[in-house]
């Protein structure tokens, strides 16, 4: 895509020829992809979830809470294992368990004798271990486990689409209406609290929305890969952007684009979606890091 735009700006006639060729291929590919209902569903959920993950991720990364996402995804793995063992639907079990874990992790990282990252590592490995035990004692280690760990694009249902629409509306409203407060809490929690902002409430809200994002996204992305959706876009945009607001917007755009490209690439090359999306995010991160270095040297 980027090369195409570069070419377009340099030699328009040649580029248009290429574009029409490439364009017809792209259109054919996309129409082929969109013929699969499960892919459309997965794309809808994935795009919305990656938007939410990117927005929440900026706050989490800047507050040094990146590991919370990782911890929560492992807890979500445990919850899915539990749901499978109980023959229950995954969402009704996973949502309350992970939301509860989010509250617990937040509490732990704020005040406890075991400090933040260690507490999260403790919970995430613990949850993973219990999850594996539950699975091996119920259904046995089969492809389900592999799907939970590395994601499967087939897992999305209509209820996931509805839930992800609700979630993304909530996250967007939060970021538009409470942008200034989120900025203040992220930048200087002590000051925000001294100003009478209910920082605990906002932290809890962000942790709970993160929990929901993870539960929704992890069956597609995989428990081991979903954290990438949260931290990569924020880290990439922080290489280049120098304003909180721009970082937020840039992360959202990067995240959605990377997800889309990742799904297309996973379709074309038959690679698992989660790994593909994270790989595209890594490429974006490298590009942004390079752009950041370039930008700085130009400014100096």
């Amino acid at each position, binding site marked *: 895509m980027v090369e195409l735009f570069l070419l377009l700006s340099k030699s328009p006639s040649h580029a248009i020829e290429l574009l029409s060729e490439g364009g017809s291929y792209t259109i054919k590919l996309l129409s082929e992809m969109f013929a699969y209902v499960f892919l459309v569903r997965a794309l809808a959920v994935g795009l919305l979830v990656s938007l939410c993950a990117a927005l929440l991720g900026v706050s989490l990364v800047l507050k040094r809470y990146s590991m919370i996402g990782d911890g929560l995804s492992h807890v979500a793995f445990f919850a899915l294992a539990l749901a499978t063992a109980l023959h229950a639907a995954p969402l009704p079990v996973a949502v309350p368990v992970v939301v509860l874990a989010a509250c617990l992790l937040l509490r732990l990282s704020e005040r406890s004798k075991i400090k933040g990252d260690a507490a999260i590592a403790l919970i995430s490995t613990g949850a993973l271990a219990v999850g594996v035990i539950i699975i091996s004692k119920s259904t046995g280690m089969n492809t389900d486990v592999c799907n939970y760990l590395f994601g499967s694009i087939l897992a999305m249902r209509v209820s996931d689409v509805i839930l992800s629409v609700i979630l993304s509306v909530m996250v967007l409203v939060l970021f538009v209406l409470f942008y200034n407060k989120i900025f203040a809490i992220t*930048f200087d929690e002590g000051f925000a609290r*001294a*100003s009478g902002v209910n920082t605990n409430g906002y932290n809890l809200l962000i942790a709970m929305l993160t929990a929901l994002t993870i539960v929704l996204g992890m069956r597609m992305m995989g428990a081991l890969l979903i954290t990438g959706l949260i931290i990569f876009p924020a880290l990439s945009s922080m290489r280049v952007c120098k304003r909180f607001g721009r970082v937020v917007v840039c992360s959202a755009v990067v995240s959605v684009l990377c997800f889309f490209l990742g799904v297309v690439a996973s379709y074309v090359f038959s690679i698992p979606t989660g790994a593909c999306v994270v790989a595209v995010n890594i490429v974006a991160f490298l590009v942004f890091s390079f752009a950041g270095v370039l930008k700085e040297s130009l400014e100096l």
Partner: protein
Amino acid sequence: MERLMECHELSFAYEGVTVVSALDFAINQGDYLFVMGENGAGKTTLINGLLRLIEPWTGGVFMAQGFSRSDIGYLPQQTAAQKDFPAGALEIVLSGFLPTCGLRPFYNREEKKMAASALRRLGVHDLRNRCFRELSGGQQRRVLLARALCAARRMLILDEPTAGLDPMAAEGLYALLRELNDGGMAVVMVSHDLHGAARHASHILHLGGAEPFYGSLEEFRATETGGRLFLRVAGRGREEGDAIG
């Protein structure tokens, strides 16, 4: 002088270990309280307590009627996360208006004007569109001070305001505080810069040692600890003067 805040039998403890014990003092409008003490004497703990960020172990902080936490401007010590935070100086200063914003999602024009004038007052108005993490330590400090000024309606609480400032900038800061204080703003300051900070102080709160001390600057100088501390500073000042002379 109108009373703003009173502390009775105020103690703070971390995990059962008392850090600050049994303080009794009050802050009135127009007071200039200098909180001093060795490292670990609990100065920052006390400030967090005054801001109600932590719960007291015993006793309490009582705010007078008509005075609330949102009347206080606060300059915290810098956190590690802020060092690489992507934010413009102006947007940081604007966040000082959070308490007055309430549920209003955006800052209004009046507040933007006041934020700009706070930056101007601290001599960092040219830097308003620069990224916070690219500023020097002293410039960052002044931006955060500008934010505290925006938030402060009746009281300023400053934790090490001159840390990282060069002597000229520190002088400017003291002059600014003096001006605000003359206008009725209560100032509570924790600082290691004994000489500079005590000059304009109306009251001293000395933590640590066997007995915490609270009283006027003159009373403190008359105590053994106070006399020793100020003598030492005065002595050092004279020696430096001699060396220059």
